[in-house]
């Protein structure tokens, strides 16, 4: 696994240089590859880009799509902003919590699902909406949510 994210980071640096301008794309590359940022990656970036590790850690903890913790196989991002809220996020959340047995911010024991409440996804015309691993699910109903989860359990 280490060799793959290292390759990706090297690729970004080859393309964009080894200045601080490459930090965000490098972190995103590692995140995409591993689902989180291992501390070996923090050390590697510190060396390659000459950026103090606290600065890198400060970046990771600032941006919600970057994380030092491994998440579940499927990260369920349910929009909790006003337009979705007005169209029933609370019910959808209840369905998800009941179905998965976890609260927002937690991961199921089998590490299959992580549930997150996120700010506006830009899908307000399909509210309430959620995104799971890049796939958009809009105009959610309790039934649709259950169907989606059942399907994801089969993979």
């Amino acid at each position, binding site marked *: 696994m280490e060799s793959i994210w290292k390759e990706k980071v090297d690729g970004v640096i080859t393309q*964009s240089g080894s200045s601080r301008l490459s930090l965000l794309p490098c972190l*995103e590359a590692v995140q995409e590859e591993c689902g989180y940022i291992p501390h070996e990656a923090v050390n590697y970036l510190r060396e390659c880009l000459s950026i103090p590790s606290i600065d890198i850690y400060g970046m990771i903890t600032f*941006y919600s799509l970057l994380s030092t913790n491994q998440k579940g196989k499927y990260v369920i991002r349910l929009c*909790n902003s006003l*337009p979705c809220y*007005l169209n029933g996020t609370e019910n959808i959340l209840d369905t998800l919590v009941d179905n998965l047995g976890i609260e927002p911010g937690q991961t199921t024991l089998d590490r299959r699902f992580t549930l997150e409440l996120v*700010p506006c996804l830009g899908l307000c015309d399909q*509210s309430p909406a959620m995104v799971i691993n890049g796939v958009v699910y809009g105009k959610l109903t309790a039934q649709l949510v259950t169907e989606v989860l059942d399907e994801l359990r089969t993979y």
Partner: protein
Amino acid sequence: MKDLKIITRHLNTANSADIDVYLADGGYQALKKALSMTPEEVIAEVKRSKLVGRGGAAFPTGLKWELTRKEKANPKYIVCNASEGEPGTFKDRLILKNDPHMVLEGFIIAAYAVGTSQGFIHAREVYTQEIELFQKAIDQATERGFLGQNIMGSNFSLDIQFYKSAGAYICGEETALFESLEGHRGIPATRPPYPVQVGLMDKPTTVNNVETLCNIPAIINNGADWFASIGHPDYPGTKLFCLSGNVKKPGVFELPLGTNLKDLLEAGGGVDGKFKAVLPGGISSSLLTETDISLDFKTLAKAGTMLGSGAVIVINSDTSMVNVASNVAHFFDEEGCGKCSICREGTRRAAEILSRFSRGQGNRNELEWLLELHEVMKDTASCGLGQVALNVAASAIRNFKGEFLAQVRKEEGVWLR
């Protein structure tokens, strides 16, 4: 007039994201024309058109380009802001998916006018499909000589670097965006100085919203006078209004600025339920309790609210305003950057207080305190986020005080003083 479509004119065109479809409808003619003018002439034309930014600040676009170009420092940069994090805004998503070449053409012309050969695009990571289409458009444009070295045989070159946002609403704010690109935490800068003087990498930078750039090809092709004659005399042209919340047909509607809110609601199939309130500029604006009002920057400002990026969120009478205020307060609690004390602590305290009200455990005194906190945040917060964070809460308390009082903690049936 209200049927005029500048930006969404390819909405129903098949394969509208493809360069050949775009070219067939006169695409990149504006770029050709612009390159035959001097950058100063392009700026003059856009200034005459009276186009103002569509990202929320409504700053005159031509003037912004002129100010950037005038700066002595080099190099200059241009950034296309496709961060679209504002709740209730989803227009840029539509544009990027539907007409990426229109954005690109506008962007290239803008870069030419400003005098930069380095452009950046900062897009919402969540828009995976849209990003793919846009990157494809960049590749296609480069292949055909509309981007890259010596564009269309001129000695103007432009290189574009694409950045995906990493999940921070505040990075839609231009100076926080710069910090993000530069590999820092997205903390907005102290202003003055302004980005046109000291921007990305401390160089003069123009930041334009996706929708703003979409107007440029049409202005260059059809002329400033044509554009200036559309819609509102002070804010000509169309706006992509995003209608969401309790409406029957939420969506993006291209209408002239100055359209009455009533007409917009009608276009959206009407309110889903009974109308209670509306946020004409999304969660950064204050609540309006009427629908008969012109949707333009000046009128809404005079009414104590604002248009912003045109994210019109409708609220029906089934909804508790306390919960609305709490939801919005929590958003700003989570999305503030944390630099300035008043916003960092203020948004947390407001979210806490409003949560308590939501649970029926409110402390009556806290309503006055929230109103005072709102005034101080408006006065002292470093950036726009802190300044508007309590607009919804304050306007909710003022307009729907009864709902809040009903959520005050009762002890042995006695109202707390």
